[in-house]
């Protein structure tokens, strides 16, 4: 099973299997494209910070302090797609 496959990979410390899964998820089955999507999200996350605008660090720190790791991990996946969407280059067939 796929979930068991991932859990086994975690137990065995097989990082390659895990990151490949993430790339395939983000790339809709295309690993190279998924890797590019990850890069794209980070580039888009970098851009708004270059002018050092004010940001709501209290919100960030409070969220990190108060929310559980699963919620934050889920948010992390949401943020990936959010920044990919901001890039204007949407590779996916559907929408969020």
């Amino acid at each position, binding site marked *: *099973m*796929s*979930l068991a496959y991932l859990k086994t990979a975690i137990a065995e410390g097989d990082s390659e299997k895990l990151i490949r899964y993430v790339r395939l998820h983000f790339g809709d089955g295309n690993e190279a494209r998924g890797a590019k999507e990850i890069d794209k999200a980070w580039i888009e996350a970098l851009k708004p910070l270059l002018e050092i605008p004010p940001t709501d660090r209290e919100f960030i720190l409070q969220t990190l302090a108060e929310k559980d790791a699963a919620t934050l991990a*889920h948010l992390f996946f949401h943020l990936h797609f959010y920044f990919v969407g901001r890039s204007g280059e949407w590779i996916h*067939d559907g929408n969020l």
Partner: protein
Amino acid sequence: MAISEQGKELRPGLWETVNERYPGSMITKTDLVPLAKLSKPLCEARLAFVSTAGVQPKGTLPFDTVHPVGDYSFRRVPSASKPADLEIHQLKYPTFGAKRDLNVIFPIERLRDLVTEKFIGSLTENFFSFIGYNMDPERLERNLAEEIAAAVEAENPDVALLAPA
């Protein structure tokens, strides 16, 4: 397979990765339940429709298309809904056709037409929709499938039409 309007594969190489991406994700059944025989003619039967298209009424919580292990919830879609009252939340199949005519993936108006033509007796008040990206087949089978089955049964259908997206 995802094919564009130009007849080209939209995601080349996808199928070469499926076995590695989804190892063992197919549910293997050894205790198959035989299909129930229709108890009355289709023209007298009440039909329920179950789809993996990710179609849902506007304003309901969007299906979780970002979660790496999938979404195990379903939505009720009133069978009287207008396509304009519905939307699609999923990432894994092309929706350019469905955005022009939802019926190509979720034939809600065509089923109503068949009732009007007396080919089908009637429709259940609600149809049912979920997304097909579920990487935990055990949870899919034990939870989501059971919940949908109970919800369908509560609508007292005589027949259920199941359609993968």
